[in-house]
């Protein structure tokens, strides 16, 4: 049993506020991802959980035990650092064996564990090398190996695969997720890459400027972002945003700007009324929920002009200009339009997100 509970945690560095009033409960055996842009306080949070950083205010519990004053060595955690932090004077084998030696494990068992971990991470041939003789990816896997040789209460990963090339990264995403499921160990994983969060995590905690924005399953975060920041941060290519105003004519309520007019459904109108929203709002729509047709006779509701088309192999992205706004549309690959050519766009009204213009809070 290893749950991690973070209650009302604040972190200051002098005058810099890195983490503000953070509350997260990590469940047993859960893969929780701390997601956010650079400098949002992810590492600070992780380091406080590890005991490497002093907690300015608030408490952290492992299970029922308050660990604020427990030194790292007694917390029974394993951590992978952002910049590997391998011991340069030790071989890969000795690096992996290091945590086991502190547990006073006997030699034969150490060798067995290290070889098991090395096998899993495909670094068996490198065991006798020193860290300087490894490539970045091999170093990273050694660092991961040093964490998994033990059976800790909690795994802490600080952007463990950020420095790998795209292909290896996608491979390691699968490996790490598989590993976590197999080892059934509570895991807290820091990343700024939303794709890693979406693909690996049971739940994601999205942070921005030290503040927790939303905590939920990847599906929650993707489909029901609580504000414009979360909506824009998660999803690739990112969500399109357009400024609109709410217009009521008789019973029908619609979102209008110079180029578009969208009549809202009953549910959506009710939601607007609940939040008593009126006037200016911001509309959000994902590139997948837009359709585009090339040419003048498109038969779609909205006229637009092509800005650029980007083929992705099977799919393509079309950047289209709606007056002075620009939207990205994802569709199956088709003929490439030339910049400036006319095209038509339609939206899936069901998938619309509407945000308060002022606060950025989601209305729906």
């Amino acid at each position, binding site marked *: 049993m290893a749950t991690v509970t973070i209650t009302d945690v604040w972190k200051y560095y002098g005058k810099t506020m890195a983490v503000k009033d953070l509350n997260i409960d990590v469940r047993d055996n859960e893969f929780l991802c701390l997601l956010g842009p650079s400098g949002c306080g992810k590492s600070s949070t992780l380091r406080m959980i*590890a*005991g*490497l950083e002093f907690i300015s205010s608030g408490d952290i519990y492992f299970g029922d035990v308050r660990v604020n004053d427990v*030194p*790292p*060595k007694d917390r029974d*955690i*394993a*951590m992978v*650092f952002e*910049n590997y*932090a*391998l*011991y*340069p*004077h030790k071989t890969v084998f000795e690096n992996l064996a*290091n*945590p086991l030696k*502190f*547990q006073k494990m006997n030699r034969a068992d150490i060798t067995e564990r290290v070889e098991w971990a090395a096998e899993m991470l*495909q*670094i068996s*041939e*490198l065991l006798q090398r*020193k*860290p*300087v*003789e490894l*490539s970045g*990816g*091999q170093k990273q896997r050694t660092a991961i190996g*040093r964490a998994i040789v033990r059976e800790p209460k909690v795994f802490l990963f600080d952007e463990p695969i950020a420095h790998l090339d795209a292909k*290896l990264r996608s*491979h390691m995403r699968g490996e790490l997720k598989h590993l976590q499921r197999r080892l059934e160990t509570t895991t807290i994983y820091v990343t700024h890459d939303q794709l890693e969060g979406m693909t690996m995590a049971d739940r994601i905690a999205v942070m921005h400027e030290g503040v927790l924005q939303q905590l939920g399953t990847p599906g929650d975060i993707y489909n029901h972002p609580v504000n414009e920041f979360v909506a824009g941060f998660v999803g690739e290519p990112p969500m399109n945003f357009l400024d609109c105003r709410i217009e009521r004519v008789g019973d029908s309520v619609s979102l209008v700007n110079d180029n578009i007019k969208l009549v809202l459904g009953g549910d959506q109108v009710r939601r607007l009324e609940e939040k008593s929203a009126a006037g200016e709002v911001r509309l959000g729509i994902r590139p997948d929920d837009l359709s585009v047709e090339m040419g003048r006779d498109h038969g779609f509701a909205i006229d637009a002009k092509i800005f650029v088309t980007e083929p992705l192999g099977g799919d393509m992205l079309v950047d289209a200009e709606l007056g002075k706004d620009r939207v990205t549309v994802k569709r199956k690959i088709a003929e490439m339009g030339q910049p400036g050519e006319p095209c038509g766009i339609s939206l899936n009204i069901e998938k619309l997100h509407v945000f308060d213009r002022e606060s950025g809070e989601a209305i729906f």
Partner: protein
Amino acid sequence: MAVNTIDSEPPELSAYRGVRRIDHTPHIFNNQPARYYLMWLLLPAILLLAAISLYPFVWLIYMSLHEVQLAPGKSDLWAGIDNFTRLFSDKSFARGWVTLFKYSALCLSVEITLGVLVAVILNNSRLEKLFITIFLMPMMMAPVVAGFLYMFLYNGTFGWYFWLLRSLGVLDGGSILGNKTWAMAGVVATDVWQWTPLIALITLAGLKRVPQEQLEANMVDGAGPLRNFFSVALPNLYPFLLIAILLRFMDNFRFIDTILIMTGGGPANATKILPTYLFDVSFKFFELGRGAAIAFTLLLLTILLGLALTKIFEDPTRKIKTSGTE
């Protein structure tokens, strides 16, 4: 370098089938580009160094092979390797070496232990800058002055240390520098007092370079502060300690000012390290040929020990096994 190791390819590559491979290695492997022009740049410095250090060195060898005559007009007599062979039967010569090793080992071990300890205590403390400035003061003193200072401190009539040790009951009767065991401790203490700060300074610089994240990783792995120091900080300090040890051991092998002032090698040769014996032979007995022979052995051993130390303390992270030709 590491880039060219070809013993095993990265595992992620071997997963692919049907990729283009190159299995031969070029004839010329790891050849450095020619850099002869560097020699021309270095030549003036080499010539200058040769003039001021090679010339005396040649003279040293010449003298060690002759019976040098001091009276004007008399030419030196060829002695072959007589000066060297005579050293084998010279008891004082052998004893000089033993004393020198004892002295140097004592100085080094105390200085390194104390220096590292001081550095660790000072590191990241608030008064670090102030303390290191104060600690460095003895180092600024000429060794002769340090010798005089300690001679007075040890003095049997008004010496403060003498009084202190006497009051503590450690020293029963006699003077410090007049006692065979205490005299050695006395000269070692002087050296320690003067040079521990240097070691502390070098170690402090080294401690700043110990990567924080390695210490943190080791803590997470389960190390307490002491284990953390020995298993992460110390190995990272090796290159710095090497410099410190090299500097100090070579100084021990050539500085005689302090000992000459304090004991002159006595009592009963208890502090007569080889360089002081060399001083006696050359400048008291004026046997310049024999002195040169002793100096030559001293030089030779200094070089050999220096090389050995460098080997022992070689930065382990730099040791790269290369499978290519070297």
